[in-house]
C-alpha cells in the first residue's frame, strides 16, 4: 500500500489550508487581478493583489478547486504578503522548481516546503502551480487577465 506517498501529498498543513483557506475573499481595492483556469479538471480561481511601491501589500484569492490547488493558493497568499516583487518572483521560481524536480533553494521556502510531495504526482503539478501562475500573470498586468493550465 502506498499510503505513505499519499500522506506526503496530503500533509496536515495542506489539509488544514484546504479546509480553512487563508485570505480567501474578494478584494475591492485590488489594483492587480487575474483569473486562473484548469479546463481539464475545472479548477477556477481569481487572485487579487494590492501592490504599493513594488511591495505586495495585500493578496487574496477566491474560487474552487481540489485540495492541492486551494492549499497551494492559500499558502501562497500567506507567503507573499509583504514581499517585494523581486522576492515574490524569486519564490515563484523556487516553488515551481521544487514541484517540477529542478534545483531549488530549500531555505527560502519555509512552510511552502509541504508542496514538495506534489512532484511525485505529475498529474497534480498543474493543480499546485495554478495559483502561482495566476499570481504571476496578475503582477504583470494592471487589468484583469486570464491564464490557463492544462
Amino acid at each position, binding site marked *: *500500500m502506498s499510503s505513505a506517498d499519499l500522506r506526503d501529498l496530503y500533509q496536515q498543513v495542506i489539509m488544514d489550508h484546504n479546509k480553512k483557506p487563508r485570505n480567501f475573499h474578494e478584494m475591492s481595492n485590488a489594483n492587480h487581478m487575474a483569473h486562473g483556469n484548469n479546463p481539464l*479538471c475545472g479548477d477556477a480561481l481569481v487572485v487579487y493583489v494590492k501592490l504599493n511601491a513594488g511591495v505586495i501589500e495585500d493578496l487574496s484569492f477566491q474560487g474552487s478547486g*481540489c485540495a492541492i490547488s486551494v492549499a497551494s493558493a492559500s499558502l501562497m497568499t500567506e507567503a507573499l504578503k509583504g514581499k517585494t516583487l523581486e522576492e515574490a518572483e524569486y519564490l515563484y521560481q523556487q516553488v515551481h522548481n521544487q514541484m517540477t524536480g529542478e534545483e531549488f533553494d530549500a531555505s527560502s521556502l519555509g512552510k511552502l516546503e509541504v508542496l514538495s510531495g506534489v512532484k511525485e504526482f505529475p498529474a497534480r503539478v498543474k493543480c499546485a502551480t495554478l495559483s502561482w501562475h495566476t499570481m504571476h500573470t496578475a503582477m504583470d498586468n494592471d487589468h484583469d487577465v486570464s491564464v490557463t493550465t492544462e
Partner: protein
Amino acid sequence: MSLLDLTAIRNDFPILHQEIYGQPLVYLDNAASSQKPVQVIDAVSDYYRNDNANVHRGVHRLSQRATDAYEGARSKVRGFVNAKSDKEIVFVRGATEAVNLIAQSFVRPMLSAGDEILISHMEHHANIVPWQMLCEQTGARLKVIPMTQVGELDLSGLENLLTERTKIMAIGHVSNALGTVNPVKEMIEKAHAKGIPVLVDGAQAVPHMMVDVQDLDCDFYVFSGHKMFAPTGIGAMYGKQALLEEMPPWQGGGDMILSVSFDHTQYNELPYKFEAGTPNISGAIGLGAAIDYMQYIGIEKIAQHEHDLLVSATEKVSDLAGVRIIGTAQNKASVLSFMIDGVHPHDVGTIFDQQGVAIRTGHHCAQPVMQFFGIPATARASFAFYNTMEEVDALVDGIKKVQELFA
C-alpha cells in the same frame, strides 16, 4: 454468479493483468476509452504483418486482401447496428468527426438564419460545439431540451421545442457523464411526426447494448470504435441511404471520386463519397474484430452483466454516508458518477489511482451537465463487461479510503 466466464474473458485482455503501485489494476474508466482484447490487437497486427496495402486501388494481391478486409469490416458494422446496406456505413475517425460531417454536409446546406438546431442539456461537447460552430456560420439558433434533477431529459415540452424551424434534433443515446439511457425511439417518433431528421450520438450506447437503427428509425447514428474495444481513430457513421445520396462530400481527395479533370469532378458512389484519402484501414479491421468479439460474448449477456455491476455498485455506494450519486435516472448504463462530501473529485482520482483503481475525474466533456448540478466536476466509475463484482468492492473501498484520508 455471473452470466459470463469472466476468467476467460479477462484472459483475452492482456492490459488488465498488471499492478499499479503494487495493487492489481482495476480499470473503471471505460466510458473514456475501453481496453482491447487480444483478438483486436492481433487483427491489427496480422493486417500489418500479412496484408498491408492501400485499398480500392491496384490489382495486386495485397491490395485485394486489404480491400476485402476493410470492406468486410464495413459489413460487420452494418450487421452490428442492423443497417439495410453497407452503403449506409461510412468510416470516420470517431463520433466527433461524424457529428461534424453531418453538421457541415447535411444540415448546413439547408440552414438559414433563424432556423433551429435542437440538442439536449446532457450532450457531450462533441454534440454541442459542432452545432454552435454551425450556428455562428449561418445565424441559426441552438435550442436545448432541459433535464431534471435526477438526470433524465424533461420531455414535457418537446412538442414545443420541435418547431417548423427545427432542421435537426441531435441527441445522445446514453449520457457519458450520468449514464442516463434516453428514450430516443420515442423522441425520434415525435421529431419525425413533424418531418424533422434525427441524429443519435451512440458513442456511449454501442459498447453496452443492442442497437438497431431500423427499429429506432434514426436518420443518422454515430459512434467511436475505441469505446467499444476497438482501436482509437476509427468510428462509424450510419446514415439513411436516401439522405447520404443527397449530401455533398465534406472532404475532397483521392478515393472519393469517380473521375477528375480540371473542369469537372464526378464524386464516387456511397459510401466512398465520404471517405476521402487513404482511410484508417487497420482501425476498421480492428473495429470489425471488436464487433466479432462482442457478438461472440453476446451483447445481451454483456448488457445483463453490466446492469448487475451497476446495480450492485449503486446500492453499495448509496449505503455510504457522505457520498452523493450524480445521475439517478431510472434507466442507466455503465456509469456511476459521484461526489464525496468535502473532497474535490480530482483528489478522489489521485487517491483511487494509488490503490490501482482507474476512474475519470473532471467535467467529462459535458460542462453544461456540471453547471446544471452546480458542481465543477465529478468522479466517475464506468463499467465494461470484463469488470467483476470484486472490482465494484474496490470502488467502494476506494471511497472509504478517501473519506479516511480526508476525515
